[in-house]
């Protein structure tokens, strides 16, 4: 095979591997952002964090939030809820960042997957 074509195909494999790994990471990141509270399921988003922070700053202690499935969920001790979702957001985003940084420095198909040291 022509050397240029061989190199191009090798690079193409690397690109697909990189894309797949990024997509796998996104799934993991999104799963890590799911939070359960009082029978409800919440996806921790920047919007949710800011909204809850606003409610806390407005001196609310207990409110009703609508969860991912449209269920009205009573949230008591709003400050604790804010702490929990903020902590969850940082945990997930830090994990995502750490794994993404590893990917950015990966230069081969093998090293995209953590099983093999480069």
């Amino acid at each position, binding site marked *: 095979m022509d050397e240029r074509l061989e190199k191009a195909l090798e690079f193409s494999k690397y690109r*697909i*591997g990189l894309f*797949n*790994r990024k*997509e*796998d990471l996104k*799934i*993991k990141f999104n*799963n*890590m952002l*799911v*939070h*359960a509270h*009082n*029978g*409800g*399921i919440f996806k921790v988003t920047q919007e949710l964090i800011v909204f809850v922070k606003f409610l806390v700053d407005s001196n609310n202690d207990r409110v009703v939030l609508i*969860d*991912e*499935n449209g*269920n009205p*969920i009573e949230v008591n001790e709003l400050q604790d809820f804010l702490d929990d979702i903020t902590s969850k957001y940082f945990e997930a985003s830090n994990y995502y960042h750490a794994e993404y940084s590893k990917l950015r420095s990966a230069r081969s*198909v093998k090293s*995209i*997957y*953590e*099983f093999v040291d480069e």
Partner: protein
Amino acid sequence: MNNYPPGFNLPRGFVMFAHNNPSLDYGTMALCNALMIKKHLKENKVALISDLGTVGHLESNFSDVIMRKAFDRIIINEPNAEEAGTRRFGDTRYTSFTDTYKNTNRPNIYDLTPFEETVMIDADYLMLDDTMDLVWDHAHDFLCNRKTVDLDHNSNNFGFDNRFNEMSIPLYWATAIYFRKTDNSKLIFELMNFIRENYAYYQYLYRFNHSGYFRNDYALSIAIHMANNLMEYGSINPLPIDHILFSMEHDEMHRFDDGKCLITSEPVQGEFYMHSVSSNLHMMNKRSILRNKKEIIAYGIS
């Protein structure tokens, strides 16, 4: 069979069914998955519902220590041999085999489970993360998923946007079901049993192809449709992670290391894509799990 702790009415836990056939060791698959549950989840009681042959095989292959670490309860429930179906199983794109498939006793879960709150999962739905800890004490008493995503990020894997056919009802997956012991849950499982007993009739009514064996997914979907007054949209909420991530029968798990699976998918023959997976995964190539059993068990008991 060894003596395992007796007793019902435990608060929360997982239930798996495992009935070996000559080609597939479902018992070992369930043991691997039970150890993943113990490793990754805080609520990690596991009950195995199985038959004497499968449990005997497990006990002859694994030490008492491993068995007791994996399973908190073992409940014997012999499936009706006359109802066993025949199924083709894939093992990558290059091998397949046909064998018996004994899965008709799953709708009896409501009476068999030792738990007040149960998550019933397939033995090959590997619990690789802690997200199932979010399910307990949910506002709804019965949860299961409609969405599926494969490793190549396709979400319409079986066509028809996850319906039986283009004009039929939504397809729900029995791969993972959460339920509490309520009248509503009981009704759904009773309907599933009724559908199982009259499977040929419902096959024609809902116009799905008979796979040669009883499909719990189909019975569940029809039961939900019936319980929902024959309406499409209604009361069934998804599990906390609203989709089942799955790997097709033509995929292969090459390595299992430190809780992560290195899997090659092959959506089109000759096109290979690699994936490193550490999220809950329905691994449809069952033999691929069994080829990695030593590593999975070693990780689980470490």
